[in-house]
């Protein structure tokens, strides 16, 4: 047990020593690790901002189905039941003629000429409207198509306003932007991670080379596999740990600088700096996990390739 603990302590001590022995190489390796982990963190923030923006727009989007005049209450209820059975429908809201009129009056209460023009009419001109919200923006098109292909198209529906809406275009465009951003983000992270692995691998290889005499002597006097390999394993961990903390600090500063600009552009989006602060444990956790996997993974490849104990 003593040997076990002394091996761990020795591995940590010599891991730090290895890190310091080739300090410029270690700085270069940590830098690429920082870049990779910063990319990962920034990607998480961008993903959150775009999701917030999309949710904000989605919350305001619906399909309004204007119903024909003179329908019986049972016919309307029957139609509502049908709509609720369509895949992707999240909720429906029925707006009666009276509610529509009241809403109109409330909206234009400061514009008496419009209110007056309404009084000229003998009857309430607003149709009964059923607003439909979908589970996600992907469903709006199919819900609209289903409605227009149903038997209710002739008997109940006067018109749907989804096709006319510009929201669909905005959602589609935003969805495309999110998809492209996500793909570009993932590609950049994969490229950076690959570079990080190659550089860490090379650093460990050079450290192994500079320690070749010590390794030979350790082997001669009967040091175990873990005693010889431990410090290089720790060195890989250190690249991941230092990379994580430095990249999180940089991420926080960058996000703080762009936060105000982002929130003024995208209404409904959570402030990025607030997001980073609230989710700091999650972001650091993910960065640390990825950093350690990259660092240790590269170390293990180099150790197994170049350290024949």
């Amino acid at each position, binding site marked *: 047990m003593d040997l076990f603990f002394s*091996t761990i302590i*020795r591995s940590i001590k010599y891991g730090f020593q290895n890190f310091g022995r080739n300090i410029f190489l270690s700085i270069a390796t940590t830098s690429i690790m920082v870049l990779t982990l910063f990319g990962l963190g920034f990607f998480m923030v961008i993903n959150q901002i775009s999701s917030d923006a999309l949710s904000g727009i989605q919350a305001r989007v619906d399909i309004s189905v204007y119903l024909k005049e003179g329908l019986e209450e049972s016919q309307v209820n029957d139609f509502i039941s049908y709509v609720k059975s369509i895949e992707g429908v999240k909720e429906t809201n029925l707006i009666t003629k009276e509610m529509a009129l009241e809403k109109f009056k409330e909206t234009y209460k400061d514009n008496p000429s419009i209110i007056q023009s309404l009084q000229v009419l003998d009857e309430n001109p607003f149709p009964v409207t059923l607003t439909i919200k979908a589970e996600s923006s992907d469903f709006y098109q199919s819900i609209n198509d289903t409605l227009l292909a149903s038997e209710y198209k002739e008997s109940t529906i006067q018109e749907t306003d989804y096709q006319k809406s510009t929201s669909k275009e905005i959602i589609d465009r935003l969805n495309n932007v999110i998809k492209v951003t996500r793909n570009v983000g993932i590609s950049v992270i994969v490229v950076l991670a690959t570079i990080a692995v190659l550089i860490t691998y090379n650093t460990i290889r050079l450290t192994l080379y500079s320690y070749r005499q*010590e390794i030979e*002597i*350790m082997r001669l*006097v*009967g*040091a175990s*596999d873990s*005693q010889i390999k431990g410090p290089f394993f720790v060195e890989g961990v250190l690249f991941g740990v230092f990379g994580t903390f430095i990249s999180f600090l940089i991420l926080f500063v960058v996000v703080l600088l762009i936060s105000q600009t982002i929130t003024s552009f995208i209404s409904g989006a959570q402030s990025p700096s607030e997001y980073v602060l609230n989710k700091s444990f999650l972001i650091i956790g993910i960065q640390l996990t990825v950093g350690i996997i990259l660092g240790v993974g590269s170390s293990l490849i180099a150790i197994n390739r170049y350290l024949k104990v």
Partner: protein
Amino acid sequence: MILFKNVTKKYGEEESFAIENINLKIEDGEFVVLVGQSGAGKSTLMRLITGEQKTDKGEVFLGKTRVNDLRYVDMPKHRRSLGIIFQDFKLLPSKTAFENIAFAMEILGKDNLEISRKVPRFLNIVGMGAKANKFPSQMSGGERQRIAIARALINEPKVLLADEPTGNLDVFNSWDIVNLLLKINEQLKTTIIFATHNKEVVNSINKRVISLDKGKIIRDSLDGKYII
């Protein structure tokens, strides 16, 4: 006790044997000299004891341990029961004499108290007590080899393998090292296997001499004569 039973070893596709059908028994506490030309099989014989090489045929025993059977994970423990010194000393240039010896204890998890108590004792055994803080570059070849011997002995192995330890030394220093090995054998009762080319030394120390030629033992005698 070290025992070789019908041991044969060949490297790769080479036609000749590095070691051919060797039978050998070395008792605990013995001082054995291995002589022979370069390529006679002296180093291979030692590597078969350390487990660095495996036999093609036959068995090698160190005490009750059958070296052939040792798995990769058992090798460190096996090597701890051996001390090894080489012609080129293999000291770490960035460490002092004390640190070089302590290094062998550190990596086996010995605590600082034990290290600070034991290293000076072994420095004195090899006659280097006054040079504990010198770096290898500040020492003569003979002094470096003494430090290498102290390092090999610090974990108190039962067997010391000395592979041409005087090969890089002048006559005076060679005698110095040989006398030190004799003293260690006598005082610590460490089994010593000493491979050398030095005829004068062999003929003077009057110990068991095993002569090797082309991988075979051609002579095994207690008369202390260097004859090939």
